[in-house]
């Protein structure tokens, strides 16, 4: 298991609802989240030591869009600041690592994305190999289709299993005010829907979403000073599989297995798992690779199938888990973020309450 030099806790978090279309700029979407977390801890903006954001210029449709996003985090007079062209969960990772140096106390983390103005299928096909995959537009939904078909062919899952993931996610989202989709769905009715990406149907895939999330993390002493109920980040790890899908066993996730081992996932109870299930078959792979059993509540928020603002959705999993722990729904859990097609990259973050 990874040793942690400095204990780090989440002291404040905020997210926007998952919007089908947010009709204003990305900074205008992020700014209220940032203001909220600063207000929660009662800090002066310029007393925050380090600021880091995750977003995607291809998604924003503008070169250097991430620079414009700095408007939202309050960067004048200048602040110590960085950016990852990744989901905000990876910004959290960098913030956590930065705190391990022990010379600073607080980090403001954010993640944001607007999928609605463009085509995420076209934009994210550019994440793939530029010689053999991107020129044929190999998009994430297609790769999710391959993964689903591989599960079926291996006898590890059926289309009914996928539909059950969808129905459970939508039902869980009924209590989540940030969810974009929710409700009671019948598995049989889901299975009667047409395919959009055989063997996947529309609700096996995420909705088009716009949204943002922000968080403040702090070293132990500062965390206790800033809030009464810090949620501790016990471990965090990020692993990747090949970007060539044909070289992978798509029915498994070796990178998740390694990361789960590194974060010591089963060194304690796993009460809650907030997983980046962007396509329904991914939940089946993740449950298996994480070694989850019936004692773990999986995606009580509803997860990305009920609201999926790319570049914020992974950080939102960490927030949903932190909120559940603060609410006393569990004492310890794991948040998972994913990047790249078909669970190619995976990040795990173990959180624990202050009890």
């Amino acid at each position, binding site marked *: 298991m990874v040793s942690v030099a400095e204990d780090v806790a989440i002291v404040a978090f905020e997210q926007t609802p998952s919007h089908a279309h947010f009709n204003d700029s990305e900074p205008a979407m992020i700014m209220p989240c940032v203001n909220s977390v600063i207000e929660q801890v009662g800090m002066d903006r310029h007393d925050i030591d380090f600021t880091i954001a995750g977003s995607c210029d291809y998604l924003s449709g503008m070169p250097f869009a991430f620079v414009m996003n700095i408007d939202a985090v309050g960067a004048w007079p200048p602040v110590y600041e960085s950016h990852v062209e990744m989901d905000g969960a990876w910004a959290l990772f960098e913030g956590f690592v930065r705190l391990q140096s022990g010379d600073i106390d607080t980090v403001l983390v954010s993640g944001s994305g607007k999928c609605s103005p463009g*085509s995420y*299928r076209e934009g994210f096909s550019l994440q793939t190999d530029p010689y053999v995959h991107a*020129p*044929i537009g*190999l*998009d994430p939904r*297609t790769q999710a*289709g391959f993964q689903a078909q591989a599960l079926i062919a291996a006898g590890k899952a059926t289309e009914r299993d996928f539909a059950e993931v969808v129905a459970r996610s939508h039902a869980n989202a009924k209590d989540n005010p940030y969810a974009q989709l929710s409700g009671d769905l019948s598995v049989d009715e889901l299975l009667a829907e047409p*395919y959009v990406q055989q063997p996947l149907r529309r609700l096996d895939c995420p909705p088009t979403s716009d949204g943002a999330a922000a968080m403040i993390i702090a070293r132990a002493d500062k965390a206790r000073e800033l809030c009464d109920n810090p949620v501790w980040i016990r471990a965090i790890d990020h692993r990747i599989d090949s970007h060539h899908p044909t070289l992978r066993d798509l029915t498994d996730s070796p990178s998740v297995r390694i990361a789960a081992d590194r974060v010591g996932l089963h060194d304690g109870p796993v009460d809650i798992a907030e997983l980046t299930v962007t396509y329904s078959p991914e939940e089946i792979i993740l449950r298996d690779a994480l070694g989850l059993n019936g004692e773990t509540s999986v995606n009580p928020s509803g997860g990305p199938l009920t609201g999926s603002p790319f570049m914020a959705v992974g950080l939102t999993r960490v927030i949903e888990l932190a909120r559940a722990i603060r609410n006393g729904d569990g004492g310890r859990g794991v948040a998972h973020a994913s990047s790249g097609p078909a669970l190619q990259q995976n990040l795990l973050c173990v959180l624990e309450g202050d009890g």
Partner: protein
Amino acid sequence: MPQLHDVDYTLEYPYTRTTGPIIGPFLTGLRDGRILGQRCGDRVLCPPMEFDPDTFATLESDLVEVGPGGEVVNWTWVAEPSAKHPFDRPFGFAFIKLDGADTALVHAVDTGGDPEAMSTGMRVRAQFRDERHGSVADVYFVPEADAADQVIEPGEEPVTITEHLIGLRINEPLYPHRARFAQGLLDGKIIGQRSPVTGKVYVPGRGYDNMSRVLMSESDEVEVSDVGTVVAFTELNPVQYYGQTETEPYVRCSILFDGTDQPVIGIDIRDMTVDEMRVGMRMRCIWRDPEERSVEDIDNRYGNIPETVYARFEPTGEPDIPADELKEHSW
């Protein structure tokens, strides 16, 4: 009368990449109607790779022809093709293990739109497009029974560069504050936003004050003067990059309109030379006739006061503002 419109544009980038010792011959082969795999120990990798995927050891170029027939080992049906896909009608994407290869290539299978024709284990065969550019998109696959015999004329030079024009289409309404700003220009007015915290006036407003981190709305909007002061200028000599439409040098300046705190940048001047421009010079907007104004160049990301709303900017003849007084606004 001119009207507002939704934002609809395609952001394009031409990417040019060198191909290297293994991908280069592979793409050359596709242009010439052959599919090549790379030997890796006892195996043949297709698509070829520059490294052993298990050990990551570098592989020397050692290519061997594979296919053109192969077997589908995984597939998914694309009911709604994207603009970037090889076909504009429904088709299958498949993992294809070409005859003679040990790994699979991801590619498109055209069954004439019939998903029932797809299955794991089906035989397919490569077909080459009439126009080939040394790209993986030069080839596609069909069920073996549907394949036609082709005679392919090889090209001359080896493929050492691959060009990939990417395009991201953006389509959305104008944000409310952008719509009000654009409507103002159509009405011959410049609309700014006054910060409720500092009182500073920004043109165009962004919907927020980034200094104080507060959102701003219609109630914070003010009409500002169309007379102002040049705070910066330069002569642009158009470099002929992809998408460039300008050919001749012209002047671009920033103008601080009276009563505002942020200059409007990117105002183009066609009827004055750079020698005639001065920081501190007072200028007035001469609007186009209302029916000739257009805000098509204004979207949610770009566009301040475009040439499509003004005829020219004209010196007022007032004394210059001392440059020292403008230092705060020199941008």
